[in-house]
């Protein structure tokens, strides 16, 4: 049976969608609903708008569709339940009609493939209800257990934990191939490929590590998409306890006054938000470019070929350099201050986020990297923790590249690496080569360096950026923090050159020379 809470959450959304059609000022509605599969309760209008904007872009313009839950055994020919979801706009379902499973059973039996199933069901539904469906969604019955698992004790979890569960749910669905959609949206196709290649990487844990990075920080993210202005407030658990705040995460809609203030001067608005809500940082993102990027990304086949990969990386760097155009942050990065930049330039350091050479950086970096590592290479990446007595292997991952494309990414269990001695990667490389005829490049990263690097990236808005960059170089120069075995020419150059000179080299490559 389908989980009651899940069904209720979906029904609430449908009810709201049908209600909204007859209301002139839907923004005024105060109805609240739960985001399905999570315990996040948000304004129903906000969720409605999110679906209205994102669904057609990411899931194609599917208007009406049929959901069919099929049995795991009997070669998937047994229909357990089925619904026709009728929508006024793509994704905005306002009516749900349960279907007779016996009617559908023979379509599944007699059809050769999913395309034929879709054609037959489309004709059948149109004949019976007059509704023309544009897609079918086939779910394996195992998904019902996964939904139940996701809702188990969900009310006692934090919002952050519920998102982790949602990611874990999605990962299992894709890994076990529990969902089939026809016609397949490009995003769905992309995710299927992604999980096939890199599915062993635990998304939920990866998302969980964000919290570790955010430790002690509370902030607000404001997102703009078309006429929708959303705020996502995130509170650290200590702040949450201290200030007696119910949840660690709040999704809200900005009111008209706030929207006007934000449009007028985003930096002023963000400063005010930090002051009013006693937060550590505030940022504002325009989602249109991000969505465009995602649409482009989903059109790609995985593994991304080197040219496509470089192009996508260029777009990411371009997004980063579009500071105060696509995104804003407060406290304001000191480095974007004209006087500071002028003074640094006098000393020969040309640093400007808005002048990052997005068109040069990814190509140059990957060309150099793959020329030294080889077009086809196996990189064993190890994250280690320094302890007083011994070094401890925390995580290990094998990355395989073919013609510069990442074809597989496999986290390795500690049992696989039981013979690995962090102080002697040489022996492991030799033995691996002898036994498996596979040449390895071993990269050992100290977890402290990784933390410093991420905090550096997240803290571009902090003071003393140059000094922190020099500290990063200093850390990179130490074998105890980063070791590539056998030696890598780029890392060797970093180690050999003085940090100041190195910084100049890298800034010359990373920044556009001309200010106009």
């Amino acid at each position: 049976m389908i989980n009651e809470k899940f069904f209720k959450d979906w029904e609430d959304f449908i009810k709201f969608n049908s209600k909204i059609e007859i209301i002139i000022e839907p923004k005024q509605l105060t109805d609240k609903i739960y985001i399905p599969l999570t315990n996040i309760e948000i304004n129903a209008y906000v969720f409605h708008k999110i679906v209205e904007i994102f669904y057609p872009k990411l899931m194609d313009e599917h208007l009406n569709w049929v959901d069919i839950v099929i049995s795991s055994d009997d070669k998937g020919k047994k229909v357990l339940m089925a619904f026709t979801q009728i929508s006024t706009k793509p994704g905005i379902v306002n009516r749900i009609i349960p279907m007779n499973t016996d009617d559908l059973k023979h379509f599944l039996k007699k059809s050769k493939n999913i395309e034929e199933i879709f054609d037959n069901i489309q004709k059948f539904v149109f004949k019976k209800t007059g509704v023309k469906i544009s897609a079918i969604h086939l779910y394996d019955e195992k998904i019902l257990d996964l939904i139940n698992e996701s809702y188990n004790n969900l009310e006692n979890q934090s919002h952050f934990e519920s998102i982790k569960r949602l990611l874990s749910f999605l990962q299992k669905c894709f890994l076990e191939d529990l969902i089939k959609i026809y016609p397949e949206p490009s995003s769905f196709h992309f995710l299927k490929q992604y999980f096939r290649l890199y599915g062993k990487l635990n998304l939920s844990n990866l998302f969980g590590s964000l919290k570790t990075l955010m430790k002690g920080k509370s902030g607000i993210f404001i997102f703009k998409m078309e006429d929708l202005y959303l705020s996502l407030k995130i509170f650290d658990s200590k702040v949450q306890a201290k200030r007696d705040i119910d949840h660690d995460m709040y999704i809200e809609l900005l009111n008209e006054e706030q929207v006007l203030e934000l449009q007028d001067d985003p930096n002023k608005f963000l400063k005010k938000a930090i002051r009013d809500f006693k937060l550590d940082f505030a940022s504002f993102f325009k989602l249109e470019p991000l969505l465009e990027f995602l649409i482009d990304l989903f059109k790609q086949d995985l593994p991304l070929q080197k040219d496509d990969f470089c192009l996508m990386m260029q777009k990411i760097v371009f997004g980063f350099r579009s500071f105060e155009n696509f995104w804003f942050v407060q406290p304001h990065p000191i480095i974007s201050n004209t006087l500071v930049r002028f003074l640094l330039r006098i000393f020969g350091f040309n640093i400007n986020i808005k002048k990052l050479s997005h068109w040069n950086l990814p190509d140059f970096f990957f060309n150099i990297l793959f020329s030294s590592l080889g077009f086809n290479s196996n990189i064993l990446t190890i994250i280690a923790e320094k302890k007083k007595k011994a070094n401890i292997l925390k995580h290990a991952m094998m990355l395989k590249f073919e013609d510069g494309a990442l074809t597989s990414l496999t986290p390795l269990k500690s049992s696989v690496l039981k013979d690995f001695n962090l102080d002697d990667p040489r022996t492991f490389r030799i033995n691996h080569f002898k036994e498996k005829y596979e040449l390895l490049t071993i990269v050992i990263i100290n977890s402290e360096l990784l933390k410093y690097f991420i905090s550096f990236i997240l803290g571009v808005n902090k003071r003393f950026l140059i000094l922190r960059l020099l500290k990063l170089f200093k850390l990179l120069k130490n074998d105890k923090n980063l070791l590539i075995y056998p030696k890598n020419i780029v890392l060797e150059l970093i180690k050999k050159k003085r940090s100041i000179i190195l910084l100049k080299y890298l800034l010359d490559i990373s920044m556009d020379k001309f200010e106009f």
Partner: protein
Amino acid sequence: MNYPLAYPANVNLETLRAIIEACIEFGIKKILVGSFPIKGFSWERMDSFFGYKELFEDLNVDFIDLSHSDNLKEISLENFEEPIKIPEEILNSSKLIIVNQVNVHPLFDFSSSILNLYSIISPEYQKIIKQEKKGKDYLFLDQYKKDLAKKILDVYEIKKPILVINDLFNLIEKAGPISFKNSKIKKTNIMILGNDSVAVDALTLKLFGLDPMNNELLFSAMERDLGNINVDKMEIVGLQLNENTLKIKSCDKDLENLKVHNTFLRKGRYCSGCYEKAFYLLNFMNTYLFKDLKYIKKQWFLIGENPDEPEDNTNVILFGDCACNTTKTYNFRKTVHLKKVVPIKARFLKLFKKKIEIKEITKEIIHDNKKILELQGCPPNFFDCLASLIKYYRKNNMPNLNFIQKTIELLTQQKEKNDNRGSFK
């Protein structure tokens, strides 16, 4: 080991190990692995970056850098201007095996095993010295390629291998090993083995859908009766491959098709030597110097004898002796500035007659054009070209090349005292 680059630009160490293990199984007691590295690079230094020796330590294999060999024997060969020195390790070996990583090659379609064997002599001897013969057009006859083929075959005759392995399991097509961006790996899962280098190379070429008769090197080998290039007369064991089974994208024969950013090519008649080096240099620019080329804004790349005149005279790169010598009288060699001047007579008159009207005249001032970079040599050396480019355009206009130059310096410098590979301790 030709380049300071990893597999498949260089030999596959996995294949090499499997072959050595097989040799040991057959009772071979002493195995030497080596070649001459390209000029400026030492095996020792490359080993410190690629770590290949340690992978064979248990097999009791000696890796030798032939450029450091003390036992050199002088041999006179027909097509060499002077006697050449060959390491005794090669000459005295009981069996010679060629492990050849196949990739596309701008001159000979692919890097053949015969070409590979040419690395048993020092790069100094590998050079082709331009010798124009009376009544014979050096460029029209492509004498460079012919001379090179002759020398390669001379070396091949010194010591023939007993086993030749053309490893095309993964091969680099299009631009070749030097350009990551413009190349592509083709996975074929095929290796061709045999005891006749010429036959193995001919079969490899046939597999690519090319006619061995059109290959300068193999055709010359056939003429000198060094081996069989007729595939129909070969006894092929294993996969029976149809013709054109593997269509590879060869190196572009026309330099104009390379389309280098902000670079305009003007070509005259050029030899294969200049074509090969220019092919690598232009591909290198295309791959690594995108930012530098953007800063340069515009450059003219003149190659060959009597190339077309560039449309303007800024940043003219003359590639090779032919381009340098045959463009001495070209317009781009001079810069003309128009300057408005007052004639002296008029100035003098003005001193006495203040009301006189002075008419300025426009005068042409001609200077030698300093925005020309001459890359001398026949053909020019690739690494010298990089150094000249950075000197001409200056470091601040060439950030990418400056960085690469530093990495090359690091690779070519002598071995450090404590050249350990580091420890995470």
